[in-house]
């Protein structure tokens, strides 16, 4: 009995799905996992301008193999018309981002950490988006941007959980592929959604009206199996004090493993490193 219990314990431990810890590596020297607020620059425009420092880390995804192409094509055949199956899907891996902030000042300070990212088609960069309305709030980060107090010379450890990054990845796909209003996408919980319905593009109000035209459903709903996952995670570090932040990604591969075991230290030819263009909606209320 005791021996059986011991054996069971060992087997259970052996079956655990440990995350892979990904630091900035040699494969993309543009990635930055250590940020210092002393390097902050002005981002955004007008009333929405803010001082921040930006860091990024790629997900160490491998190029698609012939076997994965075959599987993707098989999945594509099950999709409604007009829905493309991406190379890197939300069901292939989970991401979380762990960070440590150090306050180098001898007085308390406040930070905000915004989390954004890119899928294989678009980057979400709120500083590139200028809402039209005078009183419109700034374009939102996909996650975070919550004030956190740090004591003098203190240290703060935090985590963007897997479900938060999943939600953020789905929000980006909804905004960029589905024309869904960015405020609505980021303020609603979609991490368990089975699909989303793309809408017609957001348009400015017609002359003589203050209300933009209603968006109407357009094309087929995008099933969850075709949701795009992040291939890069961006961190926007905002503070008025002198602080540093260090972060790393935790990647947990699931089906059709596309994550390289060597992380961002893999030979560059064995990784797909994409930096797609920033998505800018045609019109932002």
């Amino acid at each position: 009995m005791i021996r059986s219990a011991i054996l069971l314990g060992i087997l259970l431990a052996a079956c655990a799905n440990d995350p892979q810890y990904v630091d900035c590596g040699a494969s993309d020297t543009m990635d930055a996992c250590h940020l210092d607020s002393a390097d902050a620059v002005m981002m955004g425009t007008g009333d929405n301008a803010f001082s921040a420092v930006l860091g990024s880390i790629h997900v160490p995804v491998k190029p698609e193999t012939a076997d994965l192409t075959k599987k993707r094509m098989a999945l594509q055949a099950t999709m409604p018309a007009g829905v493309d199956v991406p190379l890197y899907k939300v069901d292939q891996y989970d991401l979380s981002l762990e960070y440590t902030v150090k306050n180098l000042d001898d007085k308390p300070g406040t930070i905000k950490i915004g989390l954004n990212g890119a899928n294989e088609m678009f980057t979400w960069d709120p500083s590139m988006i200028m809402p039209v309305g005078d009183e419109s709030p700034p374009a939102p980060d996909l996650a975070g941007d919550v004030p956190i107090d740090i004591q003098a010379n203190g240290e703060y450890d935090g985590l963007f959980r897997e479900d938060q990054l999943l939600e953020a990845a789905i929000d980006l796909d909804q905004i960029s592929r589905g024309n869904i209003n960015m405020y609505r996408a980021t303020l609603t919980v979609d991490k368990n959604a089975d699909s989303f319905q793309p809408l017609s593009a957001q348009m400015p109000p017609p002359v003589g009206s203050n209300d933009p035209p209603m968006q109407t459903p357009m094309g087929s709903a995008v099933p969850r199996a075709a949701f795009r996952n992040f291939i890069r995670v961006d961190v926007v570090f905002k503070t008025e004090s002198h602080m540093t932040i260090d972060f790393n990604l935790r990647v947990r591969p699931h089906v059709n493993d596309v994550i390289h075991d060597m992380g961002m230290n893999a030979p560059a030819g064995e990784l797909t490193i994409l930096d797609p263009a920033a998505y800018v909606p045609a019109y932002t209320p």
Partner: protein
Amino acid sequence: MPSVAEPVIEPPPRVASTGFFAEGALGAVTYLPHTSKDANTGPELSLRIGRDVFSWFSLGLYAAASSHEATLPPPPTGQWFQLYRGGADGRLGGRIGAIAFFVEGGAGIAMISSNVLEKAMVTDPGEKYSITFHGGAGLEYQLENRHYAVGVGVDGFLVPQFATMKAIDSRLYLRYTYGGG
């Protein structure tokens, strides 16, 4: 009245079976410098099966799993990893009454469950496996049932590919020997 000497009743010698045996152990694995700053001591489970080739020499196979908190500079924080080890070893021993003693040594394979120590350069990118060598000693107490014994063992082990990781494996174990010899 002449006295009559009481008969002296000698306790029977403690008999220990020899033959095929199995051991289950609970213990702890403690890392030595330089790995000790990056990983805490952690609990361990291990199993061993083997055969007493002679009363003083046995060969065995072992499998061990230990779990440790990574303590490298954050991030990450509060993360755990497992170290699995398996291999073969030989054991030389002797017995004085109910107490047996042994020295052992062997080699095997180690696998680490995660790359969390990569940042501390304990493992290289993509590295999960290493050969391992171990050696140690122990004491065993034979119970009245000749098949059962309990013991303590302490081994040191070396994992060359994981930045020459060194650790101490200390354990309490229960042994069952199938043989009747």
